[in-house]
């Protein structure tokens, strides 16, 4: 009875999942495989601020068409705000205004950015010469010294720019640079200073602010470049490496020395850039097609969610896959691990640390934690205080580890903070109980099993095809669920039971056939 019930349930789930899946593939042409060079990005700017019952005006720069990128499908999500888009010089901006607003406000700007096919930005007329700032005293002397040296070493505006940037980036910095920029200058400070210095030398320059399109990011930083007007067009220079030319996939957002957002009626405006890549054109087209035919389809799909949540779901949707791998490892293979789903959580941490670092960090942390735990055994502590003590020790270890690796320049070591520490504590505690009761061998064996399971789960979750399929076709989770349910009634032997019953197999065959060599 329960078997029949299970089969009906699982076949319904499989049919449902496959039906939706096929419908979306055949009717809308959702792509089955991830696009290797999906040169399309979704960029989202999320602005939030606290309104105080006053009129609010927000001016924010938005990107404009450039030579390398085409911007399509822009959306301004602003509810009852009035909105105007303005253009001026090489910039474009949006003005949002509202007469009265209260509480936390959210404004979104989203755009689809496609690589290539854009219109090159041609300067129609020579820009007016830049104003030079008035420098006084020692700063004036420093500015002149830097410009004079650079000018002596160069033949034209391009060389001059490179020489100036080299000077600004020299390590250790010269006294002049130190005076003007301070000890730890930010790239944008350097860019702003370079613009001033070039103006003194008679070169028209400006700062470009933009974002680097690449892997998906939830909090993308603003990256600054320098542009000079030379031979009747604008040429770009990297502020920190002093190299000519723009990075590939750099999206210029605005130019000049104004901030991204100017606001009146409120202060403390937060802006956050999210970038989402790997959305190939085919997929985009499929979503568009779906939107026209069945608006509900898109509304109730992942593509209707804000980008930030989409990025979260790209990871969350992989968790059931990890769980399925764990079911296979535990019930079909018979691998013993600490905690049922601990390896999945560790594997999620591996996504940030990368595999080799993750394995190393985990091993070191658990080994140190375990030695502390075994030492605490001598103190005969009560259970809960002992667990709390291990938890504290784990946090201290993580902190120490981060500081040491940072000093050594191994930035990956910082990612140790991403390990779920309560879970680590439980792992250490359980490992030490097993250590006490059945010996180090069993404890190390189970620790090893946990680590291997985590590595395998990480590798499976990292297969691009799987990531693409579950994100594009979340309905396939019904199929995953069906497989998990079926495995829930799996009655076959576990692989490790072969070892367990080995004595039985051998004994049986010797006693029944009298032949020792049959196994």
């Amino acid at each position, binding site marked *: 009875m329960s078997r029949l019930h299970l089969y009906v349930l699982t076949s319904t789930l499989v049919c449902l999942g496959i039906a939706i899946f096929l419908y979306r593939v055949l009717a809308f042409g959702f792509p089955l495989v991830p696009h290797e060079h999906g040169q399309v990005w979704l960029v989202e700017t999320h602005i939030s601020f606290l309104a105080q019952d006053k009129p609010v005006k927000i001016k924010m720069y938005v990107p404009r068409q450039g030579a390398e990128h085409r911007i399509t499908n822009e959306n301004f999500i602003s509810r009852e705000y009035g909105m105007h888009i303005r253009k001026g010089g090489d910039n474009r901006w949006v003005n949002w205004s509202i007469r009265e607003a209260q509480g936390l406000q959210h404004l979104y700007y989203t755009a689809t950015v496609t690589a290539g096919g854009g219109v090159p930005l041609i300067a129609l007329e020579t820009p007016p010469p830049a104003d030079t700032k008035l420098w006084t005293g020692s700063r004036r002397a420093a500015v002149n010294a830097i410009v004079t040296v650079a000018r002596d070493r160069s033949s034209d505006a391009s060389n001059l720019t490179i020489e100036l940037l080299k000077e600004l980036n020299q390590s250790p910095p010269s006294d002049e640079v130190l005076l003007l920029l301070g000890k730890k200058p930010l790239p944008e400070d350097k860019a702003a200073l370079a613009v001033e210095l070039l103006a003194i030398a008679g070169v028209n320059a400006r700062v470009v602010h933009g974002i680097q399109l690449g892997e998906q990011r939830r909090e993308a930083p603003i990256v600054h470049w320098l542009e000079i007007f030379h031979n009747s067009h604008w040429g770009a220079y990297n502020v920190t490496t002093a190299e000519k030319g723009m990075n590939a996939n750099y999206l210029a957002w605005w130019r000049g020395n104004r901030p991204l957002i100017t606001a009146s009626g409120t202060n403390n405006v937060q802006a956050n850039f999210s970038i989402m890549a790997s959305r190939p054109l085919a997929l985009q087209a499929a979503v568009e097609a779906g939107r026209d035919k069945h608006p509900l389809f898109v509304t109730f799909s992942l593509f209707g969610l804000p980008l930030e949540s989409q990025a979260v779901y790209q990871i969350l949707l992989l968790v059931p896959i990890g769980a399925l791998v764990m079911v296979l490892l535990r019930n079909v293979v018979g691998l013993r691990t600490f905690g049922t789903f601990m390896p999945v959580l560790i594997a999620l941490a591996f996504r940030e640390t990368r595999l080799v670092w993750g394995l190393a960090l985990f091993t070191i942390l658990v080994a140190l934690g375990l030695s502390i735990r075994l030492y605490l055994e001598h103190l005969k502590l009560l259970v809960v205080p002992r667990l709390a003590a291990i938890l504290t020790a784990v946090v201290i270890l993580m902190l120490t580890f981060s500081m040491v690796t940072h000093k050594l320049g191994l930035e990956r070591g910082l990612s140790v903070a991403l390990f779920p520490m309560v879970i680590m504590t439980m792992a250490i505690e359980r490992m030490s109980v097993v250590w006490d009761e059945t010996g180090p061998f069993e404890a190390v064996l189970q620790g090893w099993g946990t680590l291997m399971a985590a590595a395998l789960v990480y590798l499976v979750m990292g297969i691009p095809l799987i990531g693409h399929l579950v994100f594009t076709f979340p309905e396939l989770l019904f199929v995953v669920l069906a497989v998990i349910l079926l495995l829930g009634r799996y009655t*076959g032997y*576990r692989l490790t039971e072969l070892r367990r019953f*080995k*004595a*039985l197999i051998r004994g049986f065959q010797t006693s029944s056939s009298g032949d020792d060599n049959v196994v």
Partner: protein
Amino acid sequence: MTMLFNQFRWLHDNGILGINHRNTEFTLRYNSRRLYPLVDDKLRTKEIAQRHGLKVPELYAVVSETHQIRNIENILKNHKDFVIKPARGSGGNGICVIVASNGTLYRKAGGELLDAEALRFHFSNILSGMFSLGGQNDRAMIEYRVRFDPVFEHISYQGVPDIRIIVFNGIPVMAMVRLPTRDSGGRANLHQGAVGAGVDLATGRTLTAVMKNRLISIHPDTGSDISGIIIPYWDQLLRQAAAAKELTGLGYLGVDMVIDRNLGPLVLELNARPGLSIQIANQSGLLPRLKAIEKLETDEMTIESRVAFAKTHFPSSISRNGAN
């Protein structure tokens, strides 16, 4: 690959019960979850066993509150020897056997001496759930120390050997004796290194034995022959095991008993998820026997007829082979 497949085939053909199969087809199906507390808590097991007229080791005291630990000497003063157990312990963890005491010092079965302070620490570990499943708070029970029957004198090391009988729908299916060794630290748990010897259900005679998944015929510490020993009170043991069905309502369970030299068979504990190594000790698979029982209408059968069924239908194939 084919070798792997052949081995699986072999296990299947010989009716060896695997852990997945046990869980899905037997424990999950015949053991209702709400009955588990009856067997997971040894105090409750003891209580219902006594109510049904089964003999159990006498309970001296229960320590359930932390403040009781302070005057533990007072609680223990009337007893020279006793056993301390966590009520919800599993796998023999947290069990402490005291063989002698003079009111201030306590000697453990291994010879180690404990003072009252060390004993108090052990009690507080038990109460805080160190040995219980899931780490929940627990109670400590202090009970009669079993003096095992002389028949086991030469085949056990330090601890008390116990008899495990698997019972399905009230019918004994398979049995083994678990003999403590030096490796197991005097405990009678197979995964800790105790010896498991199969027992012929029909006669109560021990068969071959297994230790750490290896077949053996002599006890590793005493050097005595394990097989061929007739276990006393065998019919009584079978009847007590069969009665566990009415006791708990559990369809598939393991009954653990000991034989005291003065009191006879005593029920120690019941297990709702008994292990599978008993198949190695008996050199036979559980599945054919379980399937034979599934075909029966067991509800109408008396304890006597269930025991008789087991004795006629499940004699050891090994003992017959041995006679050849």
